[in-house]
């Protein structure tokens, strides 16, 4: 049974949350994990949709630290008040 965009986005969100500050995940890492978790129930295209939804909802943000990653929104070290 195919997974919905919402379900995948939720699963991705949990991965990002678990990774926390220990490991930074790239969009491709999320997609690969989804394919590992759900097998035939997902494909790259729907994962892309899920990432878009995850970002548009504001639950996760793109970051750039010598490469682009997906993280929970947080205050960065360099920011000034």
């Amino acid at each position: 049974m195919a997974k919905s965009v919402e379900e995948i986005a939720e699963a991705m969100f949990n991965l990002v949350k678990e990774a926390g500050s220990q490991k930074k995940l790239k969009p491709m890492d999320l997609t690969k994990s989804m394919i590992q978790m759900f097998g035939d129930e997902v494909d790259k295209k729907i994962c892309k949709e899920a990432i878009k939804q995850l970002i548009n909802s504001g639950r996760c943000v793109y970051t750039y630290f010598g490469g682009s990653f997906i993280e929970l929104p947080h205050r960065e070290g360099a920011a000034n008040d």
Partner: protein
Amino acid sequence: MAVDMSKRRTDYGPPHYERFLPPIIKENYGKWKYHEILKPGVMVHVSESGAELYTVRSASGRLISIDKIRIYCDLADKYCGGYIRFTSRHNVEFLLTKKENIDPLIKDLKALGHPVGGIGNSITSIVHTQGWVHCHSAATDASGIVKCVMDDLIEYFENMKLPGKLRIALACCLNMCGAVHCSDIAILGVHRRPPRIDHANLKNVCEIPNVSASCPTAAIRPATVNGKPSVEVIEERCMFCANCYTVCPAMPLNDPLNDGVSIWVGGKVSNARSEPMFSKLAIPFIPNNPPRWPEVTGAIRNIVELWAKNARKYERMGEWINRIGWPKFFRMTGIEFRKEHIDDFKHAGLTFKRSTHLTF
């Protein structure tokens, strides 16, 4: 952030260029037959239809204020029917259909302090990056050196007396945002000291696993310093890329005593005559000497003058050096050859001299 994503326009891309093409270009698109350089900074393109388009090229300086852009707009309205373009090297181009407008436009541009030139066998604007004006990893300023070098070489922007084209580029650190590595002369900012670590604060502002992971040469590892979790750098492995500082503000790399610039020569991108080539190291290090960097401008003038005097017609810097050989280049310029000139990275052996073809 309260943004209603459903109402938001995204992914619409840049405006279609046709909206900005002057009528003469729309009418003659793909029909240009030949061009001629009329005088420095001015060329005419002639179409199969007989239409003539005059281009006046002027240096913008790259870092420009909206005030200047508005003045450019006034000039475009006055002389060009409200159309204007920029080139890949930060020049601004005015496209005219009336020949009699060329000289008044040039007069206005000069009055504004923007020289006209950069076409044909000349030195056009320097492609460069941000430097101290905006970048965190800059080993030198960009706009400042560029200004000094071009102040000094202005005659070669405004005339066409050189044997061939000469392209100069500057990048303020070895990330080389401007991809300067294929220029006749490249000015490259260099750091020479590994990051200094603010052990007291590192844990508060940076995530240690990410800092270790950020280093392309795996020079950084977690360590406890004075009882606090922090990192250490294996200094022999550091190649001064500033990635760690990008991730972690507690690892600044910038250092007044050890930062400066290096000069590279003999690269080209065009396929004309010889194949594209990388620039090669001429001067490993010149300390920063703001505001006018006289040692840098002097070194560049020396190289430019020697090339101008000795190269054959059309010969680019790299083609000239390939003909005379590097030993002669070092002898002629008086630049000291040192250990740093010899490559010691992967495949370095390919850069050793492997024949007896030598000049004396």
